[in-house]
Structures are given as structure tokens and as C-alpha cells.
């Protein structure tokens, strides 16, 4: 009789792997008297869930076992309930009374796990029950139960955001908790439910700072992130004065002068708030943690809130993380890359730690290159260039290409070595490997563009390369370079155009566009020799398959070939084509990342992830520091309150009676009776 009530027409049913009698079999096992059969059935069902198969039709049979005395079975039923309760809300209610009973169990472990499962059952009807259970648990004597209450807060909030106000009250209460077990969890809840209620932290700030070392590692990470944000809103910036200090010590700030002016303007002596100092001091030992996430969290705290002169101590710990697994390395290197742009000095002593190893995966190699580039200066560039020479020979072509780009960037950043780099790159032009040659061509093009000095020889050399090199980007770069400097190489340019005209139809689109460009430039400067050639190329372009090329052809023809229809612009054609072009800026891709809080996912992705909390700027004037004072009277109050809660516990137990009706639900369903 009971079976006919099952949702037979559920759409997922055809996805069930076994034949129908397979699940019938499981049902029989669940209804058997033996625990071993039940356990076996539950294991198979959980196996189905784990594989992502649908086991929802067994719900009624499973739910009956929630009251099982056997802990193993119970645990598996919990797993099942959490997964399917949302889909079968009415049936899920059957289990609630069991949890309510378990919430009063003398064993704290059972109380906690009942709360954990109860709060994971996503059935809106039980929101009031959950709320009550959370309130109850938050005053439990066992810190473990209180910890689970803190977790339940976030779950309830995601189920029903309207409970926010009530939940904040609970958070407020739990924040006052003195147990290290609770601290991490409640701060997680705080971050999720009400990260803007910074006022709740004031009174607990000092306590959190003092507990921090003893909190479990995952909780430490969350607390440190929260306190970083807190510090940025409550204390004045410790940076200005230190900048002045660092000027003497030869710092690397780009905006030295500006900052000096600022310090001049504001000569008011800066004294660090003792609470600010407390946070910085108490997080320091955590740099020794075994957990990379904790170290990373402390590092970002120092970066964002400590005086600039003290940030240095994190570099050693970060460098140490480079020996952990490659994924953590990747994250750490990204963060170091961002830091090293602003403060070279921090990582300079560790330059060699960023040398690439042949066993590193490409992603790590490229990040290391990035950091090496950021750290390069007059003093170490020659060592670095020697190192780069080795990298260029690497079998990993993507990495070799990135190295060449890096050499280009070093050449532009450090003027002393520009010529050395350039000649080095020219040597690479005769490398056996085409990708290396192509990349060098592209980089040389950029370098020459930056220094319009006489580099006729290099251009001639590159023109010769056109015969052999096949990589389109490189060919296009050479053609562009010749076009741009066509007046410096008057003999070669027309000849190159002649060769290109011959091979035009076989070229890549990118190259074709540059051939058109070269043609146009030569037509304007040396029309006597190239007029016919250009017209020939324009004709080829006119009938090209690619519409971009056809379009460009039409545009160029109108612009350079004078006819009666040509507009006013053609008079300026030469100016347009051969204008002074600004040199490309070779910049670090990490340049604009520093506005994200370091260590976060947003920083890694370089976009704002959901839930990203902006770090506020330092306030001009510090808010009242006395809000953090915890008065002694209040402590006494708390003690009395605590004993009160003990008293009221008994009273609250009486309230459970009101929730009784759900228990009776069980009795009303006929198929449960059999």
C-alpha cells in the first residue's frame, strides 16, 4: 500500500542505473530487522549519491532509519538526508523530531551533529525550528556545540536571508565567546552574514588578537582576513612617516617626490595605536605555520596594514612557500609578482630563489620570469642576462619565447643594458629555432621603435631574414619595421616589396595587411620605383578572400592614389602614414593588480569575485579607539549572564514541548505503521 504513494513519475527515474527491482531490493534491505542489511543498503545508496546518480525514490524507506540506534547507519542516513531533503520536503519533516530529540542528548558530539544535519536540511518550513536550535546551541556549555551553532548561522542565512537580524544577535553573542574553537567559526559567519557590522568587532578585537595563535589553522586564515579589513577602517595609516625614513635608505618608490611633499605638509608625529601594534605583533609567529594559507594570510596582513619598514619580514616566509606544491607556488608567485612591482627591495636578497628550474611547469616558469624582470636593476642585470641566456635555450618553447619578451622589457627598463640586450637579441636572429627567431624579431621591433636612432644594420639583417622565416607575426613585424624606416634603407625597401608582391597570395592575412602598409608607405616616399608594384599589390588585395584585406585595400587606394574623387585627406596621406608613433609600453601584467587584497581569489583572477570586500583606505582621523576598551564591569556582567543562561537552560527545555506536533506527524502516515 505504501509503495503506491511513491512519486512514480519523477523525471529523473530513467537515470537510475539498475532495473526497478534493484531499488526494490534495497528497500527490502532497509526494512529488514538486521542492522547489517540496513547498513549494507545505506552504503550502496550513498555510493549512488557519490556517483551523482539519483536515489531520491528511496527517500521514505531511508528516512525511517533516522532514528536507528546504530551510529554507522545514522551517519549514512544523515548524508542521504542532506542531499535529498530539499527535493522531498514533506517527507523530510518526518526526520525533524529525531533531531530535536538528539539536540537534547547528553553527549555533546551527538548534539553537535544533530544541529549540523538539521541546519543542512534545506526545508524552508523548519526555519523557525532551526533558529531556535541555533539560539539554544549558542548558549551550550560545550564549545564544540557552540562552534557548530556558528556554522549553522551561515546555513540558515543562505536558506532564509530574512532571518538576518536575529542571526546577527547570535553572532554578537558568539563573538564574545572565549573559546578558541568558536572564534574561527563565528568570524566566518560574521564575514558571510554581516561583514559591514564592523562595530560588533570593537569589543572583541583584543580578545581575537590574543586568541589568534591558538585557533585552528583554517579559522586563523578567516580571522586574519577580517582583522585586516578592520584595521584599515579603524587606524590611521602608518605609512607616511616610514616613507620618509625609507627615502634615506634608498627606496624604490616611483613617486618618491610626491610622498616627500606629503610628509612635509603633515609633520604631525605619528604614533601607532597600541591595538594596531598588537595585531601586527600577534600575527608574526604565525609566519612559522605549516599551513601555506596561514602564511599567505599573514603576509597579506603585513602588506596591507603594517608600517612599510616592517613588511620585509614576510619575504622570507613567502620564499619558503616556493618549496611547497606547484599550485601553492603559483598563487604565492602571483602575489610576489604584485608586491615586487611596488617594492623591489623586499625580494632582492632572494633573487636566486626565483631562478627557473628545468622541472618547473611552464606556468611557474613564466611567473618566475615576471618576478625576475621586476627585480632587475643596474646591479644585478648582468647576472640575470646570463641566466636568461640559458632560458632561451630551453626546450620549452613557450618559456623561451617569454624569456625573449623579458629581455626586451629589461632592455627598456634599464637603459645601461639596452644596447647589450639588443645585440644579444640580434644574435638570436641566427638561432636554429624558428620560434626563438620570430619572438626576437617581434621584440627587436618594439625596441627599435622606442629608440628611433640609427639601426640600419639591424634592419638590413632582418630584411634578409624574410627569405627564411615563416612565422607570420615575425614576418609582419619585419615588414612594418622596414616600412617605418623605409627612408633609412632606401635600397632595400623596394626590393623587399618586390619579393612580397610575388608571394602575396600565399601569405598569412596578418602579413598581407603589412605588405599593403609597406606598399603604401613606399608609394608615398619613393613612388618612382614602387608605383607599379604598389598598384599591383592593391589589385591583388582588391580580390582577396578576406574582407578585412579588401577593405584595407580600398581604404589605402583612396588615400594614396590621387584621383578626382579623393577627399581632403589624401593631401595628408604622408603625414598619416609616416607619423611619429608612440612606442609601445612594455609593462608588467601585474601592474594593476595591487588594488585587490592580496591572496584572494579576486587577485588571482584579476577580476572581482562574488563577495569581494573592498579594503577601505586608511581613515584621515582615527575613529575613537576607546570603543575597543573592555570594561571590567562588563566582565562581571558577563559572568552573571553566564550563570543566568545556565538557569534559563532548564526553562528553555520546556519550550521544546511546543515543537511537539511534528513528532505526531510520524504516527499519521499509514505506510510507516506497517
Amino acid at each position: 500500500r505504501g509503495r503506491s504513494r511513491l512519486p512514480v513519475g519523477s523525471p529523473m527515474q530513467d537515470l537510475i542505473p539498475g532495473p526497478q527491482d534493484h531499488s526494490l531490493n534495497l528497500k527490502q534491505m532497509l526494512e529488514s530487522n538486521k542492522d547489517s542489511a540496513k547498513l549494507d543498503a545505506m552504503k550502496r545508496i550513498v555510493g549512488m549519491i557519490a556517483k551523482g546518480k539519483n536515489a531520491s525514490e528511496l527517500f521514505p524507506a531511508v528516512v525511517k532509519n533516522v532514528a536507528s540506534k546504530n551510529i554507522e547507519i545514522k551517519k549514512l542516513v544523515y548524508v542521504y538526508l542532506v542531499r535529498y531533503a530539499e527535493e522531498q520536503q514533506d517527507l523530510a519533516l518526518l526526520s525533524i523530531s529525531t533531531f530535536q530529540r538528539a539536540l537534547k542528548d547528553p553527549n555533546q558530539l551527538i548534539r553537535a551533529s544533530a544541529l549540523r544535519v538539521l541546519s543542512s536540511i534545506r526545508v524552508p518550513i523548519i526555519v523557525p525550528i532551526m533558529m531556535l536550535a541555533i539560539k539554544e546551541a549558542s548558549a551550550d556549555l560545550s564549545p564544540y556545540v557552540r562552534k557548530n551553532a556558528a556554522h549553522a548561522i551561515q546555513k540558515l542565512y543562505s536558506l532564509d536571508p530574512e532571518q538576518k537580524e536575529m542571526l546577527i544577535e547570535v553572532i554578537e553573542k558568539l563573538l564574545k565567546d572565549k573559546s578558541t574553537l568558536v572564534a574561527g567559526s563565528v568570524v566566518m559567519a560574521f564575514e558571510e552574514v554581516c561583514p559591514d557590522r564592523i562595530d560588533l568587532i570593537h569589543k572583541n578585537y583584543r580578545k581575537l588578537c590574543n586568541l589568534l595563535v591558538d585557533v585552528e589553522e583554517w579559522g586563523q586564515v578567516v580571522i586574519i582576513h577580517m582583522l585586516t579589513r578592520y584595521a584599515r577602517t579603524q587606524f590611521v595609516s602608518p605609512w607616511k612617516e616610514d616613507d620618509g625614513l625609507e627615502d634615506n635608505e634608498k627606496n624604490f618608490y616611483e613617486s618618491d617626490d610626491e610622498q616627500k611633499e606629503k610628509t612635509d605638509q603633515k609633520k604631525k608625529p605619528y604614533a601607532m595605536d597600541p591595538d594596531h601594534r598588537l595585531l601586527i605583533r600577534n600575527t608574526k609567529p604565525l609566519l612559522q605555520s605549516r599551513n601555506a594559507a596561514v602564511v599567505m594570510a599573514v603576509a597579506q596582513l603585513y602588506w596591507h596594514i603594517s608600517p612599510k619598514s616592517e613588511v620585509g619580514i614576510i619575504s622570507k616566509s613567502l620564499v619558503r612557500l616556493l618549496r611547497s606544491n606547484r599550485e601553492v607556488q603559483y598563487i604565492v608567485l602571483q602575489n610576489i609578482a604584485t608586491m615586487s612591482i611596488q617594492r623591489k627591495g623586499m625580494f632582492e636578497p632572494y633573487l636566486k630563489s626565483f631562478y627557473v628550474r628545468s622541472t618547473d611547469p611552464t606556468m611557474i616558469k613564466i611567473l618566475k620570469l615576471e618576478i625576475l624582470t621586476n627585480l632587475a636593476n643596474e646591479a644585478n642585470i648582468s647576472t640575470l642576462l646570463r641566466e636568461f641566456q640559458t632560458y632561451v635555450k630551453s626546450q620549452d618553447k613557450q618559456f623561451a619565447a617569454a624569456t625573449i619578451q623579458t629581455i626586451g622589457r629589461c632592455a627598456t627598463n634599464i637603459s645601461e643594458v639596452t644596447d647589450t640586450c639588443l645585440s644579444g637579441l640580434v644574435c638570436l636572429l641566427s638561432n636554429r629555432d624558428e620560434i626563438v627567431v620570430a619572438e626576437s624579431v617581434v621584440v627587436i621591433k618594439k625596441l627599435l621603435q622606442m629608440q628611433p636612432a640609427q639601426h640600419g644594420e639591424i634592419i638590413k639583417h632582418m630584411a634578409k631574414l624574410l627569405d627564411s622565416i615563416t612565422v607570420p607575426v615575425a614576418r609582419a613585424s619585419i615588414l612594418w619595421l622596414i616600412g617605418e624606416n623605409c627612408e633609412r634603407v632606401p635600397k632595400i625597401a623596394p626590393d623587399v616589396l618586390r619579393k612580397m608582391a610575388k608571394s602575396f597570395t600565399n601569405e598569412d592575412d596578418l602579413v598581407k595587411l603589412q605588405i599593403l602598409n609597406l606598399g603604401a608607405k613606399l608609394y608615398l616616399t619613393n613612388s618612382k620605383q614602387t608605383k607599379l608594384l604598389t598598384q599591383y599589390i592593391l589589385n591583388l588585395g582588391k580580390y582577396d578572400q578576406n574582407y578585412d584585406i579588401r577593405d584595407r585595400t580600398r581604404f589605402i587606394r583612396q588615400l594614396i592614389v590621387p584621383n578626382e574623387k579623393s577627399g581632403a585627406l589624401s593631401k595628408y596621406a604622408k603625414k598619416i602614414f609616416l607619423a611619429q608613433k608612440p612606442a609601445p609600453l612594455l609593462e608588467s601584467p601585474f601592474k594593476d593588480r595591487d588594488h585587490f587584497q592580496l591572496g584572494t581569489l579576486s587577485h588571482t583572477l584579476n577580476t572581482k569575485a562574488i563577495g569581494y570586500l573592498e579594503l577601505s583606505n586608511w581613515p584621515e582621523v582615527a575613529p575613537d579607539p576607546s570603543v575597543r576598551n573592555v570594561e571590567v564591569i562588563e566582565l562581571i556582567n558577563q559572568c552573571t549572564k553566564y550563570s543566568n543562561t545556565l538557569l534559563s537552560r532548564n526553562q528553555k527545555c520546556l519550550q521544546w514541548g511546543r515543537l511537539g506536533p511534528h513528532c505526531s506527524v510520524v504516527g499519521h502516515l499509514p505506510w510507516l505503521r506497517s
Partner: protein
Amino acid sequence: MIGGLFIYNHKGEVLISRVYRDDIGRNAVDAFRVNVIHARQQVRSPVTNIARTSFFHVKRSNIWLAAVTKQNVNAAMVFEFLYKMCDVMAAYFGKISEENIKNNFVLIYELLDEILDFGYPQNSETGALKTFITQQGIKSQTKEEQSQITSQVTGQIGWRREGIKYRRNELFLDVLESVNLLMSPQGQVLSAHVSGRVVMKSYLSGMPECKFGMNDKIVIEKQGKGTADETSKSGKQSIAIDDCTFHQCVRLSKFDSERSISFIPPDGEFELMRYRTTKDIILPFRVIPLVREVGRTKLEVKVVIKSNFKPSLLAQKIEVRIPTPLNTSGVQVICMKGKAKYKASENAIVWKIKRMAGMKESQISAEIELLPTNDKKKWARPPISMNFEVWQKRSLDPWRVC
């Protein structure tokens, strides 16, 4: 925080899927498979963002583990958690393989439930987990056992339970060091450091408070201050430790103020600390390889190892691993000392020497025959690796345990 966790095999079939949060749709499982596993290109970044959903992935042998999130998490934390998760699984059923995962579905699901609550990582100490998530079918627990579990799970010290008793109290301590070296192709040492681990096996009763002292030969650099003076003061013998990390049982605050390592150890084996030194490293061995390519189908490899330590010391169980190209068809090896063998499955020549005294030299030469291939890619010449043990009689020096 972490919104869900998926485990795939190398084909991209889902082995385990666990979703913790609503914002992760059930189709996220497929998105990752299509975009990362089936993409078949080299992984560009361990964090892949697909349609505003981020996948943090780790590959262990043939298994992919992916943590999914839409929220702004601490990136290092997710990876740290994934690796912890691997450790926990390895502690339960050994190697992480498709076979093992399939056989332990239920267990993994239970574990996932325990170590991630609503996407927040929880206590992941295997010692603690093992007390209440067990693999053995039905095991009726006595009241006493249950209360033990309770005290461990709910207590402040998550890594040790109360009431442990041993007839003999024993503590074993191993110091394992590995030398990391970066050399330029010209043979110049670019950087070298020693990273060491102190591994303990504790079989102690009750809640012992242990203290791990260091004698004055060891100088741990106080952060922010140079050690130069200290080192010179304490004479030549001193060993400067650059930095160290500790197991969570070590009281960090005490270390910071008193420079003493005090802790209540977990039961059984654990890693107490890791440290690193970079100064005055004398390399115990020099490995000098010579590779000559004779035509397209033959390689001649000669490797010389020189021991660089005191003649009174003895290195044992030396194992040198010389990688060979993928298209190797046959190898002939001649070595002066020890035994050498070509292992096709590992693509390497493994050369084993039982023991070797300091300031000695030994040599191996091999002729490698290659199959002609069309592959134009040159052989990347991966690094030669080497393992050995040096036993010192005064094994507790320079560490002292009290």
C-alpha cells in the same frame, strides 16, 4: 567558501561529486570536464574560471580533484585544503587511484562531510578523524570509547586524545635532510639550500608536554635581524637555520618569545618541524655527467660521482637515477661499483651502490640505443637525481631532546 568538490578520473568521468552551496549548479561538473580535462592542452593555470565559477584543480596520478567556488576565497587555502584532503585519503586507503576511490565511495563521502562543513575546511588531522570515521563495518563502540572520541573531537587539542597508555614510553626522532641545488649548464652552483624535516614517532602515555631544545651550535635567525654577528661569535661550528615551520601542536607564541619548541605530540608518526639552511653548504656529492650523441640512434652517457665528505663517514644506499630518452630501445651499462640496471618502465637507468666512503669516486658509462623517430623535438635531458643516506653515530647532535 568552497561551494563543491568533484573528483574525476583521467577520462573525466565523475567519481565523487559533493555540492555544498546553492550557487554551484549541477552542471558545473560538466563545465570542468569539458573545459579542462578534455581540453587536452597543458594546464595553464591551476585556477580556471569558467562563467564566473572558479575551479581550483589538482592532479594526483590520474585523478583530478577540483574544488569549485564562486566566492572570494583565500586562494592558497583552497589548495592547501585539497592537499590535506589527499593526505587524509592516502592515510585511509593508501594510494589515490581510481580503483581505491571507487572502493571507498562511502568513506570519502563521510570524510567530505566531516572535513568540510558548508564549504569551510574543518579539522583535518587524520589521527582525530580516524577515531570516529572508520572503515570497518559495524563496530559497536563501548561507552568508554565513545567518550574518548568525544573528548578528542570536541577538545581544544584536536590532534591527541586523552587516556593513551603505553607500557613502554618511547619516542623516535628522525632528521631527514635534502639538498636542493641549482646549477648552471656550465657547472656553476647558482643556489643551494638544505631543507630538513624532523619526523617523530611518539608512543607516550597521557598528555606529555615535550620540549625540543637546540644546543648552541644552532642559531635560528631572529626574523628581521641579521645573523652575521651571532654566527661569527659562536664560532665556525654553528649551523644557522634560516627559517622553520612547525606542526600545529607546537606553541608558536612560546617559540617566538623563548626560542624553545614545546608541544604536546600527536600519537604516532608526525612531522614536527621543517627547516631550511642556505649558508655554508658543502655538497656531499658531485655528479658529473657527460652525454655524447653518436648519430641519430645512439647516445653515450658517462656519469661520475665524487663523494665530497670526510673519509671517516660512510654514505649508504646510494641510488642514482639517470633518465633516458623515450625512444630508447636498448641499454648497455658498465659500472665500476654497485649494480646498474635499465628500467624501461621508468625510463631511467638506476644505479645502486651499497656504500661509499668519503672522498671517493665512482663511474658509470652506458650506451643507449635509440629507435629512429620522426619526432623533431630534441630530448630535454631531464635532471639526474640521486638519493643516499649518511648515518652519523651522534645522531642526536646537534639536536637535543629533553
